C-alpha cells in the first residue's frame, strides 16, 4: 500500500529535524527527495547528488528548467550559493572519503541491527545498485524512510533481511508513518510514536524486537 501525499510529507518533515547546520547531505529518490522541501535556508545545508553537484537547490519554476542541470533522478534542479559541479569520480570520492554527514534513503527491508536491503528483489526487480551501496556504507549517518509494512501487510522492519543486502549494519534510524526507531549496537529503540498510532499497533506491525525509550515522545 502506498502512502498518501500528506503522510509522505509528514515522514519527510520528521527526517528534516535530523538535519543540522552546515551538514552535507545526500537525499535518495522517493520520500527522501521530499526532505529538501522542509530544509530552512539559514541552515546552510549542502545537498550532494551523485551526478556531480554539491549545493543543489530546489526545483525550478516551470518554464525555467535546464536540461543540463538535474538531480540524480534526471529531474531539473537549481543551485544554492556556494554550489559546485564535478565529475562522477569526485562525486563518489566525496562519499567514499566520508564527507557525507548524512544520507536519507528508502528501503525494502531493514533489520533490527541496521542491515539494509534496498536494491534488488532477485528474479523480480533487478535495477542495479546505482549509488546505494556507496551511500549506505560510507555516509556518517544513514536514515531510512519507508512504509512500515509492504503491500502485503508484512513488516519491513525484520530480525534478519531476507533480500540481498545493500550494507551490513548501516542504518542509524528508521522513520515510518507509524514510528521513529533509533538503531543502537544492541538493536532497535522506539523513540517516537507517530499519532494516531499506538504502541500496541506498532508492536503488531513490527517483525523485530525493540525496546521502548525512556524518553519516548508522541509526534502529533
Amino acid at each position, binding site marked *: 500500500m502506498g502512502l498518501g501525499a500528506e503522510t509522505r510529507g509528514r515522514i519527510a518533515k520528521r527526517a528534516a529535524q535530523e538535519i543540522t547546520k552546515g551538514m552535507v547531505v545526500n537525499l535518495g529518490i522517493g520520500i527522501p527527495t521530499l526532505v529538501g522541501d522542509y530544509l530552512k535556508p539559514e541552515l546552510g545545508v549542502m545537498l550532494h547528488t551523485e551526478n556531480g*553537484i554539491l549545493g543543489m537547490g530546489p526545483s525550478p519554476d516551470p518554464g525555467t528548467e535546464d536540461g543540463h542541470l538535474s538531480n540524480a533522478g*534526471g529531474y531539473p534542479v537549481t543551485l544554492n550559493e556556494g554550489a559546485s559541479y564535478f565529475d*562522477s*569520480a569526485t562525486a563518489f570520492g566525496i562519499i567514499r572519503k566520508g564527507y557525507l554527514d548524512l544520507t536519507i534513503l528508502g528501503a525494502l527491508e531493514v533489520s533490527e541491527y541496521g542491515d539494509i536491503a534496498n536494491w534488488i528483489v532477485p528474479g523480480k526487480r533487478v535495477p*542495479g*545498485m546505482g549509488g546505494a551501496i556507496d551511500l549506505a556504507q560510507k555516509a556518517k549517518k544513514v536514515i531510512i524512510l519507508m512504509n512500515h509494512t509492504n503491500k502485503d501487510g508484512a513488516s519491513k522492519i525484520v530480525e534478519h533481511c531476507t533480500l540481498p543486502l545493500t*550494507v551490513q549494519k548501516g542504518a542509524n534510524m528508521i522513520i515510518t508513518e507509524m514510528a521513529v526507531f533509533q538503531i543502537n549496537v544492541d538493536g532497535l529503540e522506539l523513540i517516537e510514536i507517530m499519532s494516531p498510532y499506538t504502541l500496541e499497533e506498532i508492536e503488531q506491525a513490527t517483525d523485530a524486537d525493540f525496546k521502548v525509550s525512556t524518553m519516548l515522545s508522541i509526534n502529533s
Partner: protein
Amino acid sequence: MHDIPAKVVSYEQITDHFQNGMTLMCGGFGGVGAPPTLVNLILDLGITDIKLISNDVGFPWIGPGKLITEKRVKSLIASHIGSNPEAGKQMHDGELDVEFYPQGTLAEKIRAGGMGLGGILVDVGLGTRVEKEKQQVTLENRPYMIEPALTADVAIVFAKEADRYGNLTFDKSARNTNPLVATAGDITIVEVERIVETGELDPECIVTPGVFVDYIVPSKGVDWKWVWELKREDVSPNALRKK
C-alpha cells in the same frame, strides 16, 4: 604554433571507427550529458553486438537507452538500469548480459583505465553480493576488493565547448561521467555544442586536456523529450516500453 592534427571532422569522417562487436564507452548520467548525435549515428550505421560501458542506460528513448531499445547492445557494464525497463526486460529474457558495479566503483574503474592504471582497491560492497568472486587483498589491516580498470575501443563524450586541439569544457551537471570516459577510449570522439578557436578557452577552465581527444564533431542537439517534460502517464513502465 606547431601543426596540430585536424580533430574537427564531419560525421562521415568518423564512421569507420564504429564496428560491430566494439567495446563502446558512453558518457552521461540518466541521459543527461549523453551525446545524442553520436548515438543516432551508431543507430544509423546499423552497428550491432556492442559491448557497452555506461553509468546507466538512460531512458528507452534518451541517451544510450536508444541503443538498448533497438537491440544493438550485446553486453552491458553499468551501475543502474532502473530507468530503462527495456534493458531490464532484455536482461530477464537472456538477450542482454549485464554486469553491475556500485556507481562510485564503476566511475573509478573507468578513471583508472583512462589514467593508465591496472585497477583499483575498493571496499564498497564488502559483505554484500558485490564481493562474490572478487579477488581480495588486505592493506594496512583493511580488506579491499581488486577491481580491474576499464577501457574501450571507442569512447563517446558530450561537451559544451571544444577548441580545435580538443580541450573541453562541460555544461553544469552534464559533466558527470564525461571527463572520465573521455580519457578511457582508444579512440575518443567528442560531440560538442560549440567549437571555438584554439586559445579561446581559458586554460584554468579546461576540464579535459585536448591530448585525450581524437575527434570533435558539432552536436545537432537532443532529439528527445526529457522525462520531466512528459506527463505522468507517459512515463509509466508500459508507456516507456512503447516509445
